[in-house]
């Protein structure tokens, strides 16, 4: 099972908009020490090294053990708060970034944490091996370590500091050099039993049963962590997490382990609370991917017609039961840095959609159909599948006959991103805080076949490519941000793909679990301050 198999949704649209402006949740109480937190895990990542595999499934467990240089924050400067780094500063020429590191931090095996560990992680792990780091740190040439608590990243080409900063929460997990410098990094046993600096130590893993993390008594955070143990109980069945919460066998189900349809019922169970905050930094985008090799779909009028045929409000209300927001373009509304609403929009308008299709020269035949397409909804989420069913009906209304092709996850990945055996697909790309990490790749041309979550629809727009290239080497934060606003306009105008909605996950927890959802990546943060009351 893929580790996003069950990951689903977030707050109502208003909440999603407001969330970044709101401070952390305030059921302020003096945290209590001790206790075992038991929570549901829907998948079992085999490689637990977040420095190699930067994915939510791995972070969910490993972020408590292995820490990053900085973590996302609701109210910190630039949306960040310090972890292993105390400060970070980019040079004006974009060729270096200087990190001041925390003193007095110890690895779980007792050895001291130093700048050598950061240099090793960045050069030997993030840049060559990490799924996202290979892109963001591709021009990293060296890391200087003038003393034990200073690391200076040197880039071969000017690299925007804004990008590096935005990448820190997900991409900068630091692993111990002394453990990894022997042998092949990919085969290191610590990948399955991580050693980090985090508030919890890796305890044990029983395949198919549980992961156990135990308190790190030497943690650098004052009085932290509060919990003695965290147990991830592996519950593969979609209905189990809700039942386990009700039976009080677990106290928390994060990452929408409780399906949307059950939330209404479970929110009425005494002692349980439903929380749609704490995932603002992990926004998924509901997108219609388009194969521009089909001559009909290569016509922008046809794409605009499809956009007009989709009732986004209905999708949010029906497919996501309100736990989502409608989208306007390739950057989600809840992003505090880049989002602009000033883009061409496509209100739900069947008459206009029909007119556009007529104009494009695809008149309705006698049976009311204009042309047929193959539609492949991604199987990773219930909601992507349900939206596929909706889209088929919406297209039928404007005379496009969509045939749905259902695949399991690996088959879908191969069909869409390697074989290009689709006309339309429904995909859930992730916005990772900066468009350069995993968003521009969705529309950029020249990407080799087989790269997942990228432009495999054969779309090529020289103006857009030039804009993306320019933004990638623009160092000034304001100018770079403006370029990405321009990028959103261009994408919304030419519709290489159609952004429909944005959503994230829901947590359900016992009332006793304290300090939930107090940062935008809460479920994948270190939980040093999480506690169990009463």
């Amino acid at each position, binding site marked *: 099972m893929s580790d996003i198999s069950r990951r689903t949704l977030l707050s109502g649209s208003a909440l999603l908009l407001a969330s970044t402006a709101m401070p952390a949740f305030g059921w302020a109480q003096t945290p209590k020490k001790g206790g075992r937190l038991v929570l549901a895990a829907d998948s079992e990542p085999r490689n637990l090294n977040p420095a190699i595999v930067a994915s939510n499934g791995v972070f969910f467990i490993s972020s408590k053990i292995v820490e990053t240089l900085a973590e996302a924050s609701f109210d910190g400067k630039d949306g960040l708060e310090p972890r292993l780094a105390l400060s970070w500063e980019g040079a004006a020429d974009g060729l270096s970034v200087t990190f001041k590191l925390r003193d007095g931090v110890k690895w779980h095996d007792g050895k001291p944490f130093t700048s050598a560990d950061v240099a090793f992680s960045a050069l030997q792990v993030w840049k060559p091996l990490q799924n996202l780091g290979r892109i963001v740190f591709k021009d990293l040439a060296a890391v200087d370590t003038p003393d034990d608590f200073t690391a200076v990243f040197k880039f071969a080409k000017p690299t925007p500091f804004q990008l590096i900063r935005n990448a820190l929460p997900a991409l900068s997990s630091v692993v111990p050099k002394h453990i990894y410098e022997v042998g092949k990094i990919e085969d290191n046993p610590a990948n399955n039993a991580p050693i980090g600096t985090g508030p919890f130590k890796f305890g044990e893993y029983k395949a198919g049963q549980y992961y156990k993390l135990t308190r790190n008594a030497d943690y650098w955070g004052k009085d932290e962590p509060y919990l003695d143990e965290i147990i991830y109980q592996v519950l593969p069945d979609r209905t189990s997490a809700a039942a386990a919460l009700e039976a009080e066998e677990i106290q928390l189900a994060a990452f929408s382990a409780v399906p949307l349809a059950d939330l209404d019922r479970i929110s009425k169970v005494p002692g349980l609370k439903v929380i749609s905050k704490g995932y603002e930094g992990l926004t998924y985008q509901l997108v219609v991917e388009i194969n521009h090799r089909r001559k009909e779909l290569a016509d922008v009028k046809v794409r605009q017609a499809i956009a007009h045929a989709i009732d986004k409000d209905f999708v949010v209300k029906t497919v996501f039961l309100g736990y989502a927001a409608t989208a306007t373009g390739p950057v989600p509304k809840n992003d505090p840095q880049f989002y602009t609403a000033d883009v061409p929009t496509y209100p739900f308008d069947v008459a206009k959609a029909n007119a556009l299709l007529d104009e494009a020269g695809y008149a309705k035949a006698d049976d009311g159909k204009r042309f047929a397409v193959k539609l492949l909804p991604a199987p990773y989420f219930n909601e992507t599948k349900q939206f596929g069913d909706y889209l088929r009906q919406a297209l039928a209304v404007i005379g496009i006959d969509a045939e749905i092709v259902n695949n399991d996850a*690996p088959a879908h990945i191969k069909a869409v991103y390697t074989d290009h055996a689709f006309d339309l697909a429904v995909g859930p790309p992730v916005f990772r805080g900066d468009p350069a990490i995993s968003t521009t790749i969705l529309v950029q041309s020249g990407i080799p076949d087989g790269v997942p979550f990228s432009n495999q629809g054969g779309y090529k727009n020289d103006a857009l490519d030039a804009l993306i290239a320019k933004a990638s080497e623009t160092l000034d934060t304001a100018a770079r941000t403006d370029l990405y606003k321009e990028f959103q306009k261009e994408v919304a105008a030419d519709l290489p793909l159609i952004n429909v909605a944005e959503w994230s996950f829901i947590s359900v927890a016992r009332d006793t679990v304290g300090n939930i959802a107090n940062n935008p990546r809460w479920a994948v943060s270190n939980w040093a301050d999480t506690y169990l009351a009463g």
Partner: protein
Amino acid sequence: MTRALTLIRRRLVGSIFVLLIVIIGTFLLLEAAPGDAVDAYIVSTGGDAGMIELLRHRWGLDQSELTRLANYIWALLHLDLGQSVTFSRPIRDVILERLPTTLLLMVSATALSFGLGSALGIYAGAKPGSLRDRFLSIGSLALYAVPGFWLGLVLIVVFAVDLRWLPIGGIESLASEKTGFARAADIAVHLVLPVSALGFIYFALYLRMMRAGMAEAWRQDFVLAARARGLSRRRVVFAHVARNALLPLITMLGLQSAQMLGGSVVIESVFAVPGLGRLAQEAVASRDTPLLLGIILTSAVLVIAINLAVDIAYAFLDPRVGASEAGA
């Protein structure tokens, strides 16, 4: 004794061909499924072209299908099941870790369905056409019609969520550090619901077979003779009618073992039991071909062994069977 040995020898020779067909068939089926282990892996990570190429090379997926099949069979001849792609561990270890759980589940569920099914079948068949016979027949049919996963979910809602008598899933308490008798008791408590869900599906089958066999036996001459000899009703039921009706049930026991393995996939998922069935499902989802081959091979060996045991038992219970085969 020689009769049994001949039987075993013949079956073992036949089994080798069965296993070979199973391996090649499974391999080809899995190859026909679109997407490979790397496609399954990058669903949750993404990654650029270079990383994907690296992974394909590391996992040996850049070799041709034929090469991989040949390598697999060659390694198998050296009793090596290979390395799991997703677990990065020897497949033998991964399977051995899960096998006892599935065996425990299967044996318990078989004991439950066979024991209860044949007992109630005797009870119902002792008086064909009586009220209790009709009631048990209809009741068991209803149970047989219920899908296993649904029965499992209902059991969870009633006994684990509402009444809280039993745990909702798992094979034992999490990280409890129990040992010895306390651990065995803990496992037994955890097994109650999954064993019931798995066992009750097949229970109906045994009950109905037993009952039908008894109804048939009642009409036989030897039963008439036994009654004419003035044997007690109890003696007639147990020593003559039930005993003869039991034979087809033993055949069923062998056939059912394969079905139980299939049923355990669903039950293990519903009850979060870390067994082979769930492992197989994960192996398919992650396109871990060698792991799935290992699991299917283990299951095939298991089913062959059980059926062999059944045949031997049969040969002892009914001398006619073994004689014809051994003499052929």
